[in-house]
């Protein structure tokens, strides 16, 4: 009897299945000329509130759609749906992030050719969503000023993958000991090119800079 020992050089990407779906998403978005952003942050940073207020201001001029990722509930999708924008809720159950196959399923449910801007609100988590490609044009990370200034250094992958960091809840600044300059320095220590935009969902004009930045990105696509 001869045993036949083999060593196979595989070089197989562990996330190859996700990459396959992410490429399909990219292809569909490209064909429909839809710009797609993936919002990432820790839970409670104000993603949904920012999104609702942003949609109120832009959805008359820009055709939007939203994919909401949460482990449980359709609460966020209900909030979004009140703006009149099409929304799909994905419950990831115990999974800590959205996957590209879920986005692909959603795209088949949306009138993609009529949509200029697709916003994905990922599950609140600064770790896993950073390493999972959803086929988006860009990742945007939110950090509320009720969190620590050094979050970018604690979660370097998320902040280095993002093209912009939205500093949210800036209206709370008078009540907090939050050092904006220190936070910006922390962000730039992991991503020298990151665009940093201060936002407030509750002050008038608090979203103007963010919306202008977003419009420029869509225009430049």
């Amino acid at each position, binding site marked *: 009897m001869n045993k036949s020992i083999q060593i196979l050089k595989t070089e197989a990407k562990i996330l190859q299945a996700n990459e396959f779906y992410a490429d399909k998403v990219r292809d569909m978005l490209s064909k429909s000329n839809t710009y797609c952003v993936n919002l990432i942050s820790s839970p409670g940073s104000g993603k949904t509130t920012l999104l609702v207020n942003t949609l109120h201001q832009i959805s008359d001029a820009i055709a939007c759609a939203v994919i909401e990722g949460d482990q449980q509930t359709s609460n966020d999708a209900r909030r979004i749906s009140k703006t009149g924008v099409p929304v799909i809720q994905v419950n990831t159950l115990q999974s800590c992030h959205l996957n590209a196959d879920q986005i692909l399923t959603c795209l088949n449910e949306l009138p993609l050719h009529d949509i200029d801007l697709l916003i994905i609100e990922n599950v609140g988590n600064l*770790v896993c969503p950073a390493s999972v490609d959803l086929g988006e044009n860009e990742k945007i990370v939110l950090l509320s000023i009720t969190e620590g200034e050094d979050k970018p250094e604690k979660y370097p992958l998320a902040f280095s993958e993002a093209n912009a960091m939205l500093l949210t809840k800036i209206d709370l600044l008078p009540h907090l000991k939050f050092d904006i300059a220190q936070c910006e320095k922390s962000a730039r220590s992991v991503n020298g090119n990151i665009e940093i935009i201060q936002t407030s969902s509750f002050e008038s004009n608090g979203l103007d800079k963010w919306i202008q930045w977003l419009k420029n990105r869509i225009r430049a696509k």
Partner: protein
Amino acid sequence: MAYSAALLDFKKGKKKVKIHEAGIAANIIAIVNDIAHQNGLEIIHSVEIDIGAFSGVQIDALNFALSALTPQTNLQNTEFIINTIPIVLFCQICKNKYVADIDDLVCPGCNCADFLVMNGKEMIVKSIAGEKPADE
């Protein structure tokens, strides 16, 4: 806007492994079994895996997930060898290539963090060593 509000709620019914590294481990196991099947390997002695230090994967958690998912399977005696791939960055300002630590990504040449990641994001099943059925 011409759209009416559309609320579509769907849940994925299929069982999924829970934490991030467990999902990675499940992908590894699926890849190993696929390749072993394609190549007629019956016993799998070892699997070599490259994980980049900038991939977001915790090696300890991945080892734990693999040890939790493989008992009573064909991979229960398989050795999983995990190599950590160091972070190598290319500075776009001073064109310097440097090895970085996850705690310190800044270029030593210009003190900026305007980099391309050359190595460190790998998540690869690199090789599989196994045995074909014995010849009669």
